[in-house]
């Protein structure tokens, strides 16, 4: 399944998500099983399958990481932890240090520090997304169905970085949540 085609979106990383959200809602409205409560079995089955596919496509397209994975997939580049190049040791060292800083801040219940770390990584995630936007634009320019493999491979490590950032940000919000509850 090509999620971009299903949801009627162009093959690019920076998308107008609010417009696509409307498209998704209209598709969901047209295909929802409730609209086929009286229909024949096969019509109901087709509608159910398509409605689920539309929801799946929207789930992929709206999420930056899944969206990037799908774009790499279109270009024939396999993604996933084991298939992507290893991050540089400088990057890993840096992430490790920041992670220790977060653990320390959590231990000290220093929420100012925790939030600051969260904001720092939000900014880095944003920069990574910017890089992906440019990389994909370059790769897909004028060749939507067969993107440039070299351009894609150049930008591939950014996906791994973005995964690190997202996980870090998730941890930050888990710590904030934990603090609010106690």
């Amino acid at each position, binding site marked *: 399944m090509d999620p*971009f085609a299903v949801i009627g979106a162009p093959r690019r990383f920076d998308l107008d998500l609010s417009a696509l959200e409307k498209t998704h809602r209209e598709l969901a409205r047209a295909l929802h099983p409730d609209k086929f409560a009286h229909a024949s079995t096969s019509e109901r089955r087709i509608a159910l399958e398509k409605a689920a596919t539309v929801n799946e496509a929207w789930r992929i397209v709206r999420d930056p990481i899944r969206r990037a994975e799908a774009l790499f997939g279109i270009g024939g580049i396999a993604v996933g932890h084991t298939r992507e190049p290893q991050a540089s040791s400088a990057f890993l060292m840096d992430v490790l240090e920041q992670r220790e800083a977060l653990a320390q801040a959590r231990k000290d219940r220093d929420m100012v520090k925790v939030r600051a770390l969260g904001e720092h990584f939000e900014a880095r995630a944003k920069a990574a997304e910017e890089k992906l936007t440019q990389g994909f634009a370059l790769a897909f320019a004028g060749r939507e169905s067969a993107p440039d493999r070299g351009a894609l491979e150049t930008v591939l490590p950014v996906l791994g970085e973005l995964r690190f950032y997202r996980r870090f940000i998730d941890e930050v919000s888990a710590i904030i949540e934990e603090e609010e509850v106690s």
Partner: protein
Amino acid sequence: MTGLLEIFDPKAPPRAIGIDLGTTNSLVAYVKNERPTAVLDCNGHALLPSVVHYGDRGEVVVGENAALRAAESPRETIVSVKRFMGRGADDPETERLGPYAFAKPSSSEPNVVRFLVRDRAITPVEVSAEILRTLKHLAEDELRSVGGAVITVPAYFDDAQRQATKDAGRLAGLEVLRLLNEPTAAALAYGLDKKQNGKFAVYDLGGGTFDITILVLDNGVFQVCSTGGDSALGGDDMDRAIAHELFELSGRNWKVASPRDVRIALDLARAVKHGLTSGDEVEVENPFSTEPKSLVITRARFDALIEPLLARTGAACRRALKDAGLKATELDGVILVGGATRVLAVRAYVAKLFGKEPLADIDPDEVVALGAAVQADLLAGEGTANDVLLLDVIPLSLGIEVGCGLVDRILPRNTTTPAVARATYTTQQDNQTGFEIHVVQGERELAADCRSLAHFTLRGIPPMPAGMARLEVTFRVDADGLLSVHAHEQTTGHEQSVSVKPSYGLDDDTIEQMLLDAIDHGEEDIMARRLAEARTLAQRIIGSTKKSLEVDSDLLEPGEKERILTALSALEKITSEAKGDDARRVQLHIEDLDAATKDFAGRRMNRAIARAIAGQKLEAVEHTVEHAKGLEAAHAPRRST
């Protein structure tokens, strides 16, 4: 309610009903003159206590009269059965304060809770079916003929609990059109009433379950953004907390109390709770001894007792907000649902948590059933508001156990339904011919900490070296929130449509046997019922086929219309002539018509998709015709492999 005179008027058109099958109370509603209305019993009450009493002469009593017997025969009177729906025989719920005895399951029986009542083992599904049957009769008294039913479930119900509810509906002789999440039902009741747009939270604290749902109302589309809660937290826990306090105050140990004393304490506790919604303290006579003569519970003490329960709801609310990507201040309103939201401390807590006064203008006990009636009406095609649509989500992540007992999440929580997702696995050993799949539901990383839904084994994989096989597992969740799993081996195409054996459910054979047993008791004639069901289905399909032939006649290919019309008139003929045990024949003709319309249906669906996107295209100019072409390809009917 056996022995009730069955009035059957074949001319009265069947009406769709909405049922709130609650922990404490249940009720049925339908749309009357475009307004959802609760059905009242002969005493003018809408609420039927969800209590079932099994008498010593085999009689079954439901509702108020059953509740009256709870203190005298606590073991034979099942209260709050909803808490036991979809649970295993060894579930911790069976260990909590309660007067029941449970049957030990034999190894050959499905692993479900069974109440031991007068030497009979009764499942929660059967108990719930008694309640549903009573509601059905109540509705029939008013409507003459009941069509399909929408039954509500807590949004937080997992797959086993949903399946159990649907089974209960089936056992009660209802055609279950849809399982609807309670908070969504409440929003539907409010949304249609007030024609509101905006972001809302539904805080639903019922007798036994707590749900929080964040949803967006946008021109008739009710999109659930996130949902959370606790399927074992509710007003009952408040009663229990007070009951513990009552035992304490009278110097007794609840652990060694008799079932009768436990029942008395719980009933007294409920009265205390109700009393505290208006007074500052409630004094009750000590039911256990003369010293002390009376027991006093103040509101301050009650508030302190339930504080931990409220804190648990708060944590769930914060998580739901976070999942929806919203702050409390961004909400346009908070809707209160469930009898337990009458408790003053609950209202104060909600107001503080969300920073605004909650809405409670529709009776919180009735709002869910009213919303279910609206949905039933829409599904039955009787409503006018056809642009109304509910987009619900999966409440708890669904996944598969992989190596080291870890969970691989396949459908994360809050995924919009209907949903489909696939994951690919491989074999660990050379020449491995079987692959065991353990389906779990929950948010924890270890499978052992999640709810086990099903185990099955994909067999007959051709021998090949480890890591070569590619096993694709597909999860599908339908609009009821029910899961089905399908597995196939990709390199050889070896396929297995898996019948998932629920870990905590009843299999089809057991349900069928229960249905037969019910009929042995002289309830209904199964042949007549099957035929009536087949006939209803046939008429529905005849109607929709005629309509689609009219609307999309330009999509028909040469000769196709004739083929469809032939199958159609054959079905019409058998439907009008069918009698006795002809249900199967009607069914076969339905299948014939289905086969004749299959390709046409596919084309109609593609047109619906193209239109939905085209409508948006006018707004988003950047999308070109290219994508519509890509879409055609993406939506073209795929050949099965």
